[in-house]
């Protein structure tokens, strides 16, 4: 039974991961990435890691996805404006990805017989076990991670801040309109023209 669940979740994960790569529109990529995250979360649940399942859904499908969608909408990237790479580069990318897969397959096939010792303990994924571990053995990494998150927050705020002295806020709008890039006064007709596209 759980083998079939595993196959189903693996199929969904791999398929939607491929769609993340090959769909033209970045918004669709984000949505397929959400599906991939949920199926990976299903794998966590299958492996009886309930706490990690909850954290995974909250962090990835909640926070990171919202961040991606915000950025895409902020930059108005939801059109298919990306010119694809040239075909030789695409071939090279696919071939090198396939070679990496071959290397991984060759590495894993040798170890096929070597199973780890099955000390399967179903209580390791619970909040109690992980909390005990996190605040006893891994207390220092936990605190370091909090410092890392603080530094990341400060960095993001600093990068996103408007430089007040040299304000070079001149979006070129090369990809979107392209037609009338001359310096015009923004009148109502102009705005209508620009937004109609």
């Amino acid at each position: 039974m759980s083998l079939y669940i595993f196959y189903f979740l693996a199929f969904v994960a791999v398929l939607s991961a491929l769609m993340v790569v090959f769909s033209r529109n970045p918004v669709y990529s984000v949505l397929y990435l959400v599906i991939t995250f949920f199926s990976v979360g299903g794998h966590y649940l299958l492996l009886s890691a309930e706490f990690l399942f909850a954290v995974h859904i909250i962090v990835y499908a909640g926070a990171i996805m919202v961040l991606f969608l915000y950025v895409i909408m902020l930059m108005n990237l939801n059109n298919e404006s990306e010119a694809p790479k040239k075909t030789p580069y695409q071939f090279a990318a696919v071939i090198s990805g396939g070679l990496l897969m071959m290397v991984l397959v060759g590495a894993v096939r040798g170890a096929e017989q070597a199973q780890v010792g099955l000390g399967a303990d179903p209580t390791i994924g619970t909040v109690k076990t992980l909390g005990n571990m996190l605040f006893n053995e891994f207390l220092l990494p936990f605190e370091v991670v909090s410092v890392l998150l603080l530094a990341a927050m400060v960095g993001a705020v600093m990068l996103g801040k408007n430089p007040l002295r040299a304000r070079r806020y001149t979006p070129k709008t090369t990809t979107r309109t392209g037609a009338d890039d001359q310096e015009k006064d923004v009148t109502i007709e102009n705005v209508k023209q620009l937004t109609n596209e």
Partner: protein
Amino acid sequence: MNDSVSQMIQQVPLNHYIWLSAALFVIGVLGVLYRRNAIVIFMCIELMLNAVNLLMVAFAAFHGNAAGQVFVFFVMAVAAAEVAVGLAILIVIYHNTGSTDINVLNKLKW
């Protein structure tokens, strides 16, 4: 509950998880090489991190050791920090160049 978990571990071998993680990781690498949009490249990096996380959770469950799951927790924190800073950098790049195409950023190329 206990029976179901040990039954599940008996039914799904560890190799399946290794194959699945390898496939997800390779798809992430392929996306990084294939696409030109920097946001999609970020998503593919997330895919790679997820593949590693999945493998670590699988090893932890099969080995009966919770340290792997704690490490997955740390990897998630690092991924969140990376995405926040990376997307902020991406917005600054977009304000300066007007696109998120990585071929615009060729000043460091030799």
